């Protein structure tokens, strides 16, 4: 038992000394003086959640939406994916990403919407941001997985970017020399000296020199 903990008289568990009520069983801790002016506890007692309902709901929604979207795509479009199972897996990430963003935006919107007009605008901003991110992110994820089309487009774009960077690089720099072991020697020596200095500090300071 450390100096910051005491034992609860009812359940016998070790709890933080500065609490008024036991965080395990909720009973009043005996060290606190009883007074007619006793204040209610400022820190709420957290109850342990047993079933993660939100997580289960999220993945259930993702699975259902994924099923529908995969079914529609399988039957409505020509895709380079042959089996429904493969398509389901591909769309799982897209759907999870999209619904996750919307969920997050929604929870932020409901939190900030309570603050009045300004909060409502902020909430709208979150939702709009989520929609834009989905509009950009979903095609990116799809394109990276459905590789036949994405490969050709990706090759062309990357070649263009490489050429542009190379041109900028040769225009800006005369000659870039990659350093060998030289900087590592200086850095290593400096690091060694720093460790010696830090150890000197450690020997000089007392154990409780870091105080609030």
């Amino acid at each position: 038992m450390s100096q910051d903990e005491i034992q609860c008289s009812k359940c016998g568990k070790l709890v933080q000394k500065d609490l008024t009520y036991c965080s395990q069983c909720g009973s009043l801790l005996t060290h606190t003086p009883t007074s007619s002016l006793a204040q209610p506890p400022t820190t709420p007692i957290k109850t342990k959640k047993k079933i993660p309902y939100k997580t289960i709901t999220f993945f259930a929604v993702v699975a259902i939406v994924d099923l529908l979207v995969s079914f529609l795509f399988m039957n409505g479009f020509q895709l380079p994916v042959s089996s429904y199972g493969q398509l389901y897996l591909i769309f799982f990430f897209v759907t999870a990403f999209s619904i996750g963003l919307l969920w997050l935006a929604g929870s932020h919107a409901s939190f900030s919407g309570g603050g009045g007009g300004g909060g409502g605008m902020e909430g709208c901003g979150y939702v709009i941001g989520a929609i834009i991110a989905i509009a950009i992110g979903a095609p990116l994820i799809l394109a990276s997985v459905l590789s036949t089309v994405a490969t050709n487009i990706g090759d062309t774009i990357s070649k263009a970017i490489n050429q542009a960077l190379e041109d900028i690089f040769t225009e800006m720099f005369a000659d870039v020399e990659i350093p060998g072991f030289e900087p590592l020697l200086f850095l290593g020596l400096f690091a060694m000296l720093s460790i010696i200095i830090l150890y000197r500090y450690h020997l000089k300071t007392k154990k409780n020199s870091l105080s609030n």
Partner: protein
Amino acid sequence: MKRHDCIQDRPILHLNHKTYKFLNHQLATLFIVSPILCISIYFFLSLRMNYWIYEFTSSFISVFLNLLFNLNAQVIIYPEHDIFPSIFIPNHPFEGSYAITINCIAGHIFSFIIGVILLVPSSKIGSSKKEFVWRKIKVLVISISGIFILNVFRIIFLLYFNFKGIPFEIIHESLFFLSAVIGAIFFAIVLEHWLPELFVSIYYLYRLISQKISKKR
């Protein structure tokens, strides 16, 4: 919502009869941003617009070579700024032409020095911001000029001993090692004397982490 990085809640470190207090974002900036800044400064020094640094250093070296050893050294500067300038020594037993590259001017060392000094965090108690900035400027000027002079004399002696017949690889490596040791000791002493916040902040972080680990146990 309570800010976790509130100044009043941060623990205080008592060291060498002084008090120090650093915030999380200051420590994060030092450890995460400083390597990126050092690399950026290194590439900045490689830009063509900074060709004047190589010209200046080469001219400085050739002046002192002629002053001390009378070698008639000349600086060759290429007008297109495609290649680094060179120092040419006539009547040389070997090739006699030395290109002054970014590593010759200790560009990597300067990048590290500038990147680290600029991001040393200031303590939130114990010293005023004006005084801290003045100390930083002092350390920057002293470190850069000290390393510059050390490096110039390293190259001067390198060229002279090579001119006298010692193979370039042997003298280059040995002089480089010696100047790295002297430079590292010099930089550490300057920092410890005028800008101890660099080492104190690292020690502060160590104490914070060890305190949190001991509390969890």
